[in-house]
């Protein structure tokens, strides 16, 4: 309610009241018009203020979501006894015990642990459970294994540790304070609107003051000059525009919500449109966030598995009998099971009990082989050794499903090198061959290749236990290991990855063509990150990193020419040693960048680095660790499904389906709304001249006032509102995803061309059309244009009740006033009719209206209808209320300005034609807004 236009309107309102005060002190019967006007202005300010507040009201209390994560109770050893106390009461030095399923109550240094694994995903982005033990393994507290972090969850095992940090001093507390410490910066659209307000307010104030001075020097009374000043300000300020912009943005926000982009503040819609860099998290955003079988290696060959969301299209060769053996191992050596009661759920969507890689294997085999549980039932499990981190393999022994075969089948999977150690033969084309050096080399090549793709590789082997040694009644003992675990037969490798979402590569390509740089920022391992980056196109197929070139040319990395590489993979460790200049250099020089192993603070530094390049930065993320970067970014995008509350709170936008492709839709909407806002503003600014000219002519030529201040408000806040919102529904003129993102300092919302064309071309034509209507009304009533000049003083004098017109007729003051209101109404209708033409021409900026389709945007026609209906109601329905200054207008006057409206249309078509014919010419540069 303060600042910008509101200030101007407040000033106007106070001037009105002061003017009335002065009038009243000299003449008790002074008319109340100025009081009404002042009140209306204040009302306008307050209403638009309330409206804006209502639209903007949002809660961004990040800390509250951190509070939710505080564990309620902690088991602490104090005074040699175990006590349960509220976690807030923990102090540094306390010894706490945590067991599986609990949240860690503070940052603790592990003293002892039994098979403890923690879920750090919300903090570091690592999706796998992390083992915790008392060994110190790394300099970095985030990477060492002997620290558990506050608010993470202990998944299994137990841990005893000493509290080293509590509350805000914990790692997560730091992140929280980082997130809340990052200031809320102005959105690009807010800056644009401010810029626009500056321009319009500047024009209003300077013209106002200029004409105030002119009026005073023309010997008008100061009081009158003040009233002129108010009129000029009111005419110049587009009162309804800010509300319109807010509505337009919220409408787009709603439209985007339907496309799974939930936007928290409407302004963010446009921010997304001007985004030039997207810093995307990997897990969950670019990838499906579930392990999936990607490659198989058997028979000395690598096979590719389908990693798309439904796995439907498995094309690798399944005829080999090696595959039969491998599939049996995959099926049997697996503890994961589908949860019951999901018969109708597609396989890939079924919930599974078991860890990520077992789940992947279960689903993989279910898709290919059919009912896994049935197969397992036929091959009854006799005994099994589950996977653990010391032996790094999993083993089970089964009866076979062949009733004649009384042998037991032992199946085993685990880390490939461990599995290979236990094998002496290898199965090729269903036959066992001794494992010699060449096959071992082939294995290593395949292993390195798959590992190099960033995939997690598992080895599989089996052994049919001889029936004579192990009869049916043999009792296996896991602890005694009374069965062979060496000289097994190696069957194959299988590698898994969290595969990219199938829509992502396409979306990344679209971003590329839209001039948006996509940077991957992840906490994950560089190799995995690079592999995913390559598969989604963040690093395109033909570009290489410095390391790649070095590897290809077989030269040291230092000798590679930096400029040869288009892509770069930067790890958190490298980033730590970089100055901000070096980071800037990387960001500016490489087109394709992947940041791996980054900490939350580094994400923030990267975002800042991008912002230093004058880029509008979008950041996607889901974890608590992302929240500072989300907050810092020009637009933070959180994941709706996988996202933590902290991330969602810090973000400006939430992707309900966690799908990167939705961002592209968002960008498109954002760009469209920017274009359409230009149209809306151009439409709104145009009539300002038509509203302003009457005052200028009134002051200089002394005509009876052509349009009243109240009438102007009825245009600004009445007839023009719906049409200007309707422009938001306009379709794009060309493929907006094929042009570069706008430069936030060069491509302004309101630029010189827009203002000049609206004010000095269309605006002026509109003013002429409206004046024609005004003159017509006066002339037909007896006051021909030339009799009007310098008539003002007599016209407005209450004492002259027999003013002669051109025909010698004599008019009382009230009759003249009524005629003046008729003039207001006529001028109003003139502007209204031409605003319809203005609305139509604003549908496009470059294309012809006929290319765009006159009837494609139905809302425009609703807008036009609303204009006409409101106009008719004001003139004919409310014509009897004197305070509104509207009168019944003869029907034919509605058509006087129509030729002008058509002229406006034709002129604009010609403008667009020349722009299309001569791109880059003087005309294009000056007439395209």
């Amino acid at each position: 309610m303060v600042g910008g236009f509101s200030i101007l309107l407040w000033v106007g309102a106070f001037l009105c009241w002061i003017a009335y005060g002065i009038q009243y002190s000299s003449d008790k019967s002074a008319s109340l018009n100025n009081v009404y006007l002042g009140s209306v202005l204040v009302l306008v300010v307050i209403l638009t203020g309330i409206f804006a507040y209502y639209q903007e009201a949002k809660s961004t209390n990040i800390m509250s979501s951190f509070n939710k994560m505080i564990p309620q109770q902690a088991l602490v050893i104090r005074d040699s006894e175990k006590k349960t106390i509220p976690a807030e009461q923990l102090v540094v030095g306390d010894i706490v015990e945590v067991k599986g399923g609990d949240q860690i109550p503070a940052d603790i240094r592990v003293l002892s642990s039994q098979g403890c694994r923690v879920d750090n995903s919300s903090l570091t982005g690592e999706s796998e459970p992390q083992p915790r033990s008392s060994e110190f393994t790394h300099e970095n507290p985030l990477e060492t294994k002997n620290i558990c972090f506050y608010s993470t969850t202990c998944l299994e095992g137990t841990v005893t540790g000493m509290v080293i940090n509590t509350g805000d001093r914990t790692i997560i507390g730091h992140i929280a304070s980082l997130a809340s410490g990052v200031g809320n910066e102005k959105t690009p659209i807010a800056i644009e609107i401010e810029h626009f307000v500056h321009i319009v307010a500047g024009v209003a104030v300077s013209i106002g003051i200029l004409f105030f001075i002119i009026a005073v020097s023309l010997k008008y009374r100061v009081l009158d000059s003040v009233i002129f000043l108010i009129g000029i300000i009111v005419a110049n300020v587009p009162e309804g525009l800010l509300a319109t912009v807010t509505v337009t943005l919220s409408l787009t926000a709603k439209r985007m919500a339907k496309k799974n982009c939930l936007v928290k503040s409407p302004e963010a819609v446009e921010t997304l449109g001007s985004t030039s860099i997207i810093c995307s998290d990997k897990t969950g955003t670019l990838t499906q966030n579930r392990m999936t079988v990607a490659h198989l290696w058997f028979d000395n060959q690598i096979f590719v598995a389908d990693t798309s969301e439904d796995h439907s299209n498995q094309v690798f060769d399944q005829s080999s009998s090696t595959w039969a053996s491998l599939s049996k191992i995959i099926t049997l050596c697996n503890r994961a099971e589908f949860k019951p009661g999901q018969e109708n759920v597609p396989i890939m969507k079924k919930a599974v009990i078991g860890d990520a890689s077992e789940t992947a294997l279960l689903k993989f085999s279910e898709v290919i082989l059919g009912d896994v549980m049935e197969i397992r039932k036929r091959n009854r499990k006799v005994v099994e050794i589950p996977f653990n981190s010391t032996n790094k393999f999993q083993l089970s022994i089964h009866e076979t499903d062949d009733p004649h075969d009384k042998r037991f089948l032992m199946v085993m999977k685990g880390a490939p090198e461990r599995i290979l150690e236990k094998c002496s033969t290898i199965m090729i084309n269903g036959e066992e061959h001794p494992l010699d050096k060449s096959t071992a080399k082939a294995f290593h090549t395949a292993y390195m290749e798959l590992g190099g793709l960033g995939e997690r590789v598992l080895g599989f082997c089996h052994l049919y236990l001889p029936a004579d040694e192990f009869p049916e009644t043999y009792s296996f003992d896991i602890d005694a290991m009374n069965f062979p675990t060496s000289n097994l037969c190696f069957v194959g490798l299988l590698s898994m990855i969290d595969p990219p979402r199938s829509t992502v590569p396409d979306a990344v390509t679209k971003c590329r063509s839209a001039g948006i740089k996509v940077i991957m920022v992840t906490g994950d391992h560089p190799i995995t990150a690079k592999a995913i980056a390559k598969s989604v196109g963040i690093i395109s197929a033909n570009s290489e990193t410095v390391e790649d070139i070095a590897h290809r040319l077989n030269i040291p990395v230092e000798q590679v020419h930096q400029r040869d590489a288009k892509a770069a993979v930067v790890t958190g460790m490298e980033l730590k040693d970089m100055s901000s200049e070096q980071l800037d250099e990387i960001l500016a020089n490489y087109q394709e960048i992947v940041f791996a192993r980054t900490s939350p603070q580094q994400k923030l530094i990267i975002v800042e680095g991008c912002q230093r390049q004058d880029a509008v930065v979008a950041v996607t993320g889901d974890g608590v660790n992302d929240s500072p970067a989300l907050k810092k970014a020009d637009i933070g995008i959180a994941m709706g499904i996988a996202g933590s509350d902290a991330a969602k709170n810090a973000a400006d936008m939430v992707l309900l389906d966690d799908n990167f492709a939705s961002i592209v839709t968002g960008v498109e909407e954002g760009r469209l709304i920017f274009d359409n806002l230009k149209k809306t503003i151009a439409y709104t600014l145009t009539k300002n001249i038509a509203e302003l000219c009457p005052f200028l002519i009134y002051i200089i030529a002394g005509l009876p006032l052509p349009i009243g201040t109240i009438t102007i408000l009825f245009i600004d806040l009445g007839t023009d509102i719906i049409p200007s919102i309707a422009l938001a529904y306009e379709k794009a003129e060309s493929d907006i995803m094929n042009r570069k993102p706008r430069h936030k300092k060069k491509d302004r919302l309101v630029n010189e061309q827009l203002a000049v064309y609206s004010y000095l071309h269309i605006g002026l034509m509109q003013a002429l059309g409206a004046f024609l209507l005004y003159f017509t009304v006066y002339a037909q009533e007896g006051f021909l244009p030339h009799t009007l000049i310098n008539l003002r003083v007599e016209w407005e004098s209450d004492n002259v009740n027999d003013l002669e017109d051109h025909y010698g007729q004599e008019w009382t003051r009230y009759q003249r006033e009524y005629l003046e209101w008729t003039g207001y109404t006529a001028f109003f209708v003139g502007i209204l009719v031409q605003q319809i033409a203005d609305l139509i021409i604003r549908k496009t900026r470059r294309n012809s209206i006929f290319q765009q389709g006159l009837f494609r945007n139905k809302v425009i026609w609703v807008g036009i209808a609303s204009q006409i209906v409101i106009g008719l109601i004001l003139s004919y329905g409310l014509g009897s209320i004197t305070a509104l200054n509207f009168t019944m207008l003869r029907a034919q006057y509605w058509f006087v300005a129509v030729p002008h409206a058509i002229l406006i249309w034709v002129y604009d078509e010609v403008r667009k034609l020349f722009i299309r014919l001569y791109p880059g010419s003087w005309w294009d540069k000056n007439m395209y807004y």
Partner: protein
Amino acid sequence: MRRQLRSRRTPSFPYSYRYRLDDQDELNQNYLADEEEEAEEEARVMVVPKSEEEEEENEKEEEEEEKKEEEEGQGQPTGNAWWQKLQIMSEYLWDPERRMFLARTGLILLIYFFFYASLAAVITLCMYTLFLTISPYIPTFTERVKPPGVMIRPFAHSLNFNFNVSEPETWQHYVISLNGFLQGYNDSLQEEMNVDCPPGQYFIQDGDEDEDKKACQFKRSFLKNCSGLEDPTFGYSTGQPCILLKMNRIVGFRPELGDPVKVSCKVQRGDENDIRSIRYYPESASFDLRYYPYYGKLTHVNYTSPLVAMHFTDVVKNQAVPVQCQLKGKGIINDVINDRFVGRVIFTLNIET
């Protein structure tokens, strides 16, 4: 151990980060400053294509904005900005590279000249068409000027007649005003210019609308005691003031046939007996039908509006008496709330002795 952890964290954790934030803030400020400058630049460039007359305006606008900026400056290098702006301005006026005055805008000015010239042509054409459709003799519509308004003479910016009978300077200006007003009604002039048409019926003159029309005589002598012929002070010297009432002219207006518009005055508020007698001249207190209809200024050149004189022969002295004179007749409305001059006129008489 805590210290260890913290020291390790230092390179990547908030302590170093805070510096960055500060830097960032400064950057932002500079950035915003740029923004403002740009805004001004644009605002200025935006008005460039206006005609040269308005250039002064530009400069003023600029000065104002610069002043504004100075206030908001917050210790920014405003001097520098000033200098830059001066340079841009001087480059705009004098382009040193092409050695041309106003070179950049020459073409623009030319194009705008043609654009506005054609706009002017369009509006001229429109106005011309407008004049073609409008008759110079008869107004197209008269509904806004009907029903007729009423005005009185003498009129000196006020409807309060305050005068002291014994002090001629308090009423002298009324007499002068009336005398001046009645010059056009002098009998000699009326007889010379106008025709004596039969009373009691419209003076209808058929023929083309551009033909000159004759006007009926309204002689000053019709006003008898209020004509100023016998009593050159119009009764003001005796405390019996004459006030002339005139109905506003409306082209084509005709009162009801056989029922001329009458004038009647009475005390508007207060004791009805404050006015004990009024004499009307002509005695019928009406506007004769022969003065209607009116054919418009251009053809009905010598038309003189008929008058009714009210001679307030016996009014209470030394107190303000509000008087309302109304027209009565068919087609006359005299009770419009908003318009106190349609069909009626209200004035106060305050005659001191």
